[in-house]
């Protein structure tokens, strides 16, 4: 747990960070966001004392950061920055093992840990002997994350880690990081200026302006109830649409379906389930909806597959673009989990909207 107590930083009489009182929960990603110069990076760097606070205190697990020796404090906290900062003269192996080396781990333990980390970030071990310049931007940033995780710190500080990466790779890095966090449950403080990124990965979002914390809350809450005009503007005109990205389709999954073989289609007389998925050996050919069948139409439709983590917005866009009304949720490990209907999604959203306006 990280606690800020009346935390301030002055640069030449001007407050860069003003009187913050906050608590960051363990195992959560807390995102700090705001326009440039709002003090978000300064706030982050005070945690590992790259910048010394002028007033107030920071406590990590109830121990003040001033009770730590500065160097050992930094060694116990993972740190990832936008420029990545991989050391170009070190191999990937040496880059990842920097903190364990500094902590004087023995060789065998470092070896084991480095290999473990390469598996964790999903890069081949053959990369270990390469130099950073032989890797792509996205790969380098994964190595940057691995390096920060090397000594298995409880806390991870990330300063716009995906900021310099092209949009496509950024999205996959965000997905990668969200997945990683599910397994690792680190306490992450993450600075960004990208509101979409904040909403996507944050368990909590702190919106800052002129060194002050305007609103610190869960993304849903911030989107539903922005505290003032500034927050509203930061979230943008698409605020309501953004909310759609937070709702998971899995909450609206329907399970009254049946998988049948192709040759069984003609034998169906009474529909007990509302949806039949037609299997043809290892592929899925299409599906039949009960209500279509009753109207007597030739009604095998193409299946739109989505994965189990999909959100409302992406699902609705996908269905609209394919001209379909039903999406089937297919999970890599567990196969077909059910289906969702676009109308349910829209209705649920409308209901939420209605509740908010009352």
């Amino acid at each position: 747990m990280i606690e800020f107590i009346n935390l301030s930083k002055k640069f030449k009489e001007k407050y860069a960070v003003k009187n913050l009182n906050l608590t960051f929960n363990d195992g959560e990603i807390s995102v700090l966001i705001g326009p440039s110069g709002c003090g978000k990076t300064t706030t982050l760097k005070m945690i590992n004392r790259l910048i010394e606070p002028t007033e107030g205190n920071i406590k990590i697990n109830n121990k003040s950061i001033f009770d730590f020796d500065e160097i050992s404090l930094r060694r116990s906290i993972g740190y990832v920055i936008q420029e990545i900062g991989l050391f170009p003269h070190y191999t990937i192996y040496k880059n990842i093992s920097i903190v364990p080396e500094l902590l004087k781990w023995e060789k065998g333990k470092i070896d084991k840990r480095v290999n473990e980390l390469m598996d964790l970030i999903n890069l081949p071990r053959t990369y270990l002997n390469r130099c950073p310049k032989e890797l792509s931007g996205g790969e380098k940033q994964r190595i940057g994350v691995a390096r920060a995780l090397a000594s298995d710190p409880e806390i991870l500080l990330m300063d716009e880690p995906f900021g310099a990466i092209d949009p496509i790779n950024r999205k996959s890095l965000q997905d990668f990081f969200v997945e990683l966090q599910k397994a690792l449950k680190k306490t992450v403080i993450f600075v960004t200026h990208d509101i979409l990124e904040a909403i996507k990965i944050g368990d909590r979002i702190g919106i800052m302006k002129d060194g002050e914390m305007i609103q610190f809350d869960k993304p849903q809450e911030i989107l539903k109830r922005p505290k003032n005009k500034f927050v509203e503007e930061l979230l943008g005109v698409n605020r309501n649409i953004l909310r759609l990205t937070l709702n998971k389709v899995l909450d609206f999954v329907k399970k009254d379906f049946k998988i049948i073989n192709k040759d069984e289609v003609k034998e169906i007389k009474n529909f007990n389930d509302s949806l039949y998925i037609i299997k043809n050996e290892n592929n899925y050919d299409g599906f039949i909806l009960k209500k279509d069948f009753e109207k007597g139409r030739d009604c095998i439709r193409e299946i739109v597959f989505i994965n189990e983590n999909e959100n409302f917005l992406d699902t609705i866009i996908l269905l609209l673009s394919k001209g379909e009304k039903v999406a089937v949720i297919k999970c890599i490990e567990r196969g077909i989990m059910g289906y969702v209907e676009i109308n349910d999604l829209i209705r649920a959203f409308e209901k939420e909207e209605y509740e908010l306006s009352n």
Partner: protein
Amino acid sequence: MDYLLNNLNSILKRTYEHLYIVSISLIISMILGIIIGILISRDKKIASITLKMISILFTIPSLSLFGILISILSPFKLGIGKFPAIIALIIYTLLPITRNTYTAIISIDKGIIESAKGMGMNWGEIIRKIIFPLSIPLLMAGIRNGFVLGIGVGSISFLIGAGGLGYYIFEGIERSNNNMIFTGVITISFLSVFINYSLYFIERSLTPKGVRK
């Protein structure tokens, strides 16, 4: 050519003398230059003032510098000989070495230093593990520059009694002996080229694989 072969012994002796003066001054200048370079890299203003001062010293013509040194050092009975020559060479070679050290350090990506600091390296570790290996190419280029420069200026230091290969050139001119002049020019040029390339190969082998072009 005959002259060259007939005087091989004394040529070698003077080459040794020449290299001796230049190497001693270069070693001192390297130590000074690298320390100054590291120190000034922490503050831009101080760096600019220091480098300007060293540049001014650098622009003093070598002959006048010897003159100045003679007048300063003669009260201590050190006005002529190897000592003022070494001092002069240090002053000349200091600029390329200091400037290159400084440039090497400040041109290292800020993110790299910040990461190193954020991961808990102390200042000494940052210098040793990060800044030094990354500065090698530029640093070595500075030393190479300094050495070649030193060999050139070193030939003039013959005039203040420091010996060296300058002997052949100045004595040759005095005696209108073309063979002597030729010998001096050839040996000095050969020495420069040789030193330059040897240092270049050392530089290449010291440069870490990841930063090689």
